[in-house]
């Protein structure tokens, strides 16, 4: 096998010296030097596509490019100096939608679950910076783990939404073509959807049907030849999902440790023993790796180098809600020119105009490979790509209220890696969860639960379910969605709901206090934003940031200068002005 791959690689990339090895699991490791980052990524993808290859560990370098690597040595030294600080049953590394979904699923068992997160809050990576699509599963390759979990996850979402009380809009997704030759594409997508088991997909051949599905297409006066429709396309605010999962997990006893970086994985005789973090050593029977863009590094710490994450960033733009979205469903119009864009974005979905559950247009994301996994910079080109997905001619750059960017944790097989490590028993990899990771999250949680359960049972234990386990999370008060009468009654019950803090999104002090008094306490301005929407509006916190900062400082018993925008190192204020310092203490 290795000879065949070597030969193919040397033909595909002449002049690039590669050292290729393959292990018993058919994982190919490659070393050598490339001309550019994109070439390095291409080599990884090429090798992963060779027959029989399970995955690729890409250790190549790029001429003249320093590839940033996270340095764990200080965190490791700090943790080892502190010694064992906790003994628990399960450690989950990473508090994104995958980590929190698994935590919430395992929370029903009578045991101790600890989530460690390097950032200050849940949902600070890819889980917060995506377009919130609950994909139906027609865009994934049949037979892959992704396809299976995407379909399953999509079907499980309504239950999550019902139990956890987050907004979920089954808006459906429709693609229409204005050129008969493009019907082949629609038919192909439909066929894949059927093959994957997508819920009620449809292919149609008339403009009438297109207009029944999305009446607002009528304004366009298009010569529609047909298309495909996927009613099981859903839309969520992804941070709402993660926060709901985390709070419900915490309500059921899961412990969250923030600002906690895993620097090593402890193992003995092929069995995981726990993790070393900057806060000390946490002993555990199982370690579940949901570390997003760092998952490959955590897996390597467990002695299991079986994939490499290459960051693929995506820029998104949100438009002001006054710029009415043109369509109610996610609508794609193919006239031929779109095909080029599709190709460019081949490995990642997205690139459509969506409408958030708060009724704002959300555009993008783009897809650009980056050598630095933490590079979530927006660029003019990526923004132009995102804006290119805008189908509403009446809106444009002037309507943007926020541009942001997330990094997809992709591996070279472009599939999910979910398995009990064959090298370090008790260490479960849940890696390379990029799009459609959000849609797949419930199924991923279930799959990991089964892996864990099987292992525990194999060891002769029968895990008990907690008697007081409660899968429900109460809906938050959302002042902005109430009638005037309801608002009046609410303020009468608790006057703190009468004070509007964020004028753009009409968020009250009461809602901010609800967030602070919840089971997963937000400590930064952005953490409040994700929970309440304060600062998400058109002024982007220009007016409410000082007020939110004041409330946080007051409620958490901190100084103003101690409040951060996001995680450690992002404080907003440095020191008191000379005059304020002289006056002393009037804060």
């Amino acid at each position, binding site marked *: 096998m290795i000879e065949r791959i070597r030969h193919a690689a040397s033909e595909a990339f002449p002049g690039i010296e590669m050292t290729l090895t393959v292990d018993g699991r058919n994982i190919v490791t490659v070393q050598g030097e490339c001309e550019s980052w994109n070439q390095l990524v291409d080599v990884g993808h090429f090798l992963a596509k060779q027959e029989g290859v399970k995955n690729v560990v890409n250790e190549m370098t790029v001429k003249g490019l320093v590839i940033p690597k996270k340095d764990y040595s200080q965190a490791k030294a700090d943790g080892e100096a502190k010694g064992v600080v906790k003994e628990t049953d399960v450690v989950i590394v990473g508090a994104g939608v995958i980590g929190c979904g698994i935590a919430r699923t395992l929370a029903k068992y009578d045991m101790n679950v600890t989530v460690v997160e390097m950032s200050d809050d849940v949902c600070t990576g890819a889980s917060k910076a995506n377009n919130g699509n609950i994909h139906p599963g027609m865009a994934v390759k049949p037979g892959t783990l992704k396809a299976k979990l995407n379909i399953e996850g999509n079907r499980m979402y309504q239950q999550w939404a019902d139990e956890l009380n987050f907004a979920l809009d089954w808006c459906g997704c429709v693609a229409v073509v204005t050129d008969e030759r493009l019907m082949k594409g629609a038919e192909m997508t439909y066929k894949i959807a059927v093959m994957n088991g997508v819920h009620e997909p449809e292919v149609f051949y008339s403009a009438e049907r297109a207009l029944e599905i999305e009446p607002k297409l009528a304004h366009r006066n298009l010569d529609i030849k047909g298309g495909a429709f996927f009613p099981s396309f859903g839309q969520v605010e992804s941070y709402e999902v993660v926060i709901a999962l985390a709070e419900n997990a915490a309500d059921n006893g899961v412990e969250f440790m923030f600002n906690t970086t895993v620097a090593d994985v402890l193992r003995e005789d092929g069995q995981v023993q726990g993790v070393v973090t900057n806060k000390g050593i946490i002993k555990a029977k199982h370690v579940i790796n949901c570390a997003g863009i760092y998952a490959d590094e955590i897996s390597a710490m467990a002695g299991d180098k079986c994939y490499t994450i290459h960051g693929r960033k995506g820029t998104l733009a949100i438009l002001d809600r006054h710029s009415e979205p043109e369509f109610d469903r996610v609508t794609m119009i193919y006239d031929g020119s779109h095909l080029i864009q599709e190709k460019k974005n081949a490995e990642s979905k997205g690139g459509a105009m969506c409408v958030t559950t708060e009724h704002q247009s959300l555009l993008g994301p783009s897809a650009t490979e980056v050598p630095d996994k933490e590079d979530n910079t927006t660029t003019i080109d990526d*923004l132009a790509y995102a804006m290119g997905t805008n189908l509403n001619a009446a809106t444009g750059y002037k309507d943007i209220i926020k541009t942001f960017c997330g990094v997809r944790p992709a591996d070279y097989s472009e599939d999910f890696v979910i398995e009990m490590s064959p090298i370090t028993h008790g260490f479960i990899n849940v890696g390379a969860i990029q799009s459609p990771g959000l849609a797949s999250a419930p199924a991923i949680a279930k799959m990991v639960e089964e892996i864990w359960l099987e292992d525990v049972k194999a060891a002769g234990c029968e895990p008990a379910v907690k008697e007081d386990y409660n899968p429900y999370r109460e809906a938050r008060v959302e002042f902005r969605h109430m009638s*005037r009468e309801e608002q009046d009654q609410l303020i009468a019950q608790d*006057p703190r709901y009468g004070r*509007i803090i964020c*004028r753009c999104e009409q968020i009250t002090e009461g809602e901010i206090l609800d967030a602070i008094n919840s089971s997963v306490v937000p400590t930064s301005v952005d953490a409040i934003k994700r929970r309440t929407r304060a600062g998400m509006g058109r002024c982007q916190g220009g007016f409410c*940031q000082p007020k939110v900062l004041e409330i946080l400082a007051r409620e958490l018993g901190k100084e103003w200068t101690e409040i951060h925008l996001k995680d450690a190192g*992002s*404080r*907003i204020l440095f020191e008191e002005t000379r005059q304020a310092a002289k006056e002393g203490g009037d804060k």
Partner: protein
Amino acid sequence: MKKMNFDIAVIGGGPAGLAAAIQARKEGAEKVLVIERDVELGGILQQCIHDGFGLHRFGKRMSGNEYAQEFIDELENTDIEVLLDTMVLEVTRDKVIYACNNKDGMMEIACKAVILAMGCRERTASQIQLMGYRPAGVLTAGSVQRYINMEGYLPGKKAVILGSGDIGLIMARRMTLEGMEVKGVYEVMPSPGGLTRNIVQCLDDYDIPLHLSTTVAKVHGKKRIEGVTVAKLDENRQIIPGTEEYIECDLLVLAVGLIPENELSVGCGIELDERTRGPVLDNHFMTSVPGIFACGNVAVVFDLVDYVSQSGEIAAKGAVAYMNGKLTGGEGTEYVHTVPAGNVNFIVPQKIVKGEECEVQLYMRVKHPDKKAVLEVSEDGQVTQTGRHPFVAPPEMISCTVKATGNADVIVDMKEGK
């Protein structure tokens, strides 16, 4: 729900709203209400502790809060009612206001006329397509002003300012006086965005460099800002390759423009002017919804507070006239227009009630800087007045009183200097 009735309700207790409320009471409105979202009156003036306010109106240099206090004192000697810490959530076309606070709950306030005076907000990083990371330490000039002047905190030590709007210039000086290092002001346009006097008094006097046709191309720093890449722009505002320069800083201040805050106006269907981003107003400063008036920075971003107060008084007179049945407005009313020509970019008010012979106060801005320009006002091909302007520039608003017959459009032409 608490129900109230007023002759006139003014939304916003800043300089426009205060002047409007006082004037409305003087004009004979008996029940006047000011609704203010902050805990005190004065609006943004309360954080403007620099001087230079009130030169036109009071003939002396005052700080923003001193200027506001003159009006607050006057208002407190009247029976005008004030609701503080109260947010207006909605204004209906029938002139019913829904507002709430933590004492009165939700209030339904029915009025004979409404004056909108909500002011403006600042353009943000995303609105100017600021690229790169989104770390802490990127703040609008007004936010920096609030943190330093009101809350007593420094949000950085080494600042770069993007945009040469007035608040940015004022803050360049303020930050320097607070012991911070201001590395420079970078302006995308080939001419400054702020008043000449502020360039002189806030930058030149403190040796702070102003770089025109230059932008911040990238923000560096994942957690707290560490620096910016600045770059020169060509005449099409595209980055000139090779001119990029890295500047270390821990604060990026954005002074990149103001936007009238018309969310309530849009909510009740008031027609907006694309250029001013404020409501289309008639000579009484009435909006397209009868009985709803607008003044101050919600109508158009002014440069001087004196004009803001003046616009409040015009709107108040209109509101009282409407209340007394002397104005109707709305669909049945015909208008002639004020038409910008030559170097004039826009004019407020945009229209005059047809047949009303009047003296109308016009506020306008030019498109580009010019010297020895001549302003020519004409109706029906007849020049009705001219004025000489030794120097004009977009940041400096031009205000003039024009006699109109109400029978024809008023063409306002700023002719190029010779």
